[in-house]
């Protein structure tokens, strides 16, 4: 079965055998589940911000250096949502499921699903919410501040060396 992932961003999909390869055709990106008809399949959808991890300082520093003071490395996403959801469905030959991802955080009551499913089959969505990661957001701000401070410091140093 083909499961199209519309606007998935950096969400990773895990099947029975681990991470699934994202394929691409004219309709967009998809994953192909290769189960038998009638078999129950579970796909895990996981997303975490790049700066959520333990070694985020070294990660950011590495890309800041190789990206020429961070100018040539892509900006870190403002959206810090953490997703650990799943889709459950029954395999059907030639069946197609489309899942649209929306970058919205879950509200306090646990509402506002990030996943919208378009399918003729029955698809159960489990835990399809983005939980805001406050620490990643704070780290992103810190990175921005220190990145600019370091750039200014380097520029000042360079000017001082040239003047001398």
């Amino acid at each position: 079965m083909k499961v199209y992932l519309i606007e998935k961003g950096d969400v990773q999909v895990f099947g029975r055998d681990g991470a699934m390869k994202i394929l691409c055709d004219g309709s967009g990106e998809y994953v192909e589940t290769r189960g038998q008809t009638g078999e129950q399949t579970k796909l895990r959808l996981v997303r975490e911000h790049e700066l959520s991890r333990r070694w985020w300082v070294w990660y950011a520093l590495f890309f800041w250096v190789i990206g020429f003071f961070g100018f040539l490395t892509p900006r870190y996403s403002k959206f810090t949502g953490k997703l650990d959801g799943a889709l459950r469905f029954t395999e059907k030959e030639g069946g197609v499921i489309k899942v649209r991802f929306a970058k919205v955080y879950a509200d306090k009551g646990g509402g506002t699903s990030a996943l919208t499913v378009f399918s003729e089959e029955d698809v159960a969505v489990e835990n399809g919410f983005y939980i805001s990661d406050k620490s990643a957001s704070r780290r992103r701000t810190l990175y921005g501040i220190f990145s600019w401070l370091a750039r200014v410091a380097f520029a000042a140093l360079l000017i001082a060396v040239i003047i001398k």
Partner: protein
Amino acid sequence: MKNGEALIGRAQFTERLCATVVRVHWLLAVAALLPLVFQFLTGIAALGSVLYLMFLLLFVIASLGALLLNEGFRALFHSHGLDAMQAFTDQIIGFYKVVMPLLFLLSLLLFSLNLFVSLRCGSGSKVRGKIVAGSICLGLTVLALILFYAWMLRGSAS
């Protein structure tokens, strides 16, 4: 979940690495094209200088040569801007004689790295875009290299 986290981390790392490498590659391609741009600008400046002299000559003809009696007007015919620009271009070319092979090697290295990481770890629609961008950058660098040396050979032959 631990295994999943590691896989997500690796995917994000490789994606960012490829994106950064492509951007650095673009910078190198632009840097490789610089001596040609300077040479082109010198050509444009020479053309501008000819137009400027023609404009002055038109004034001389219109005044039946009377303007040539004025020393200030005669001074307008002496322009050193073009010589200064040519000297600057020569300096840049001298620098690029050394740097151009290094730029090419670096470009080749970045292309290989991008290709290797994209094909081995990348998935989805972004992979193709990155490989195309890397190929364009390498193509531009090779073009700049060929044009630079062809132009140098022509210069030394004449």
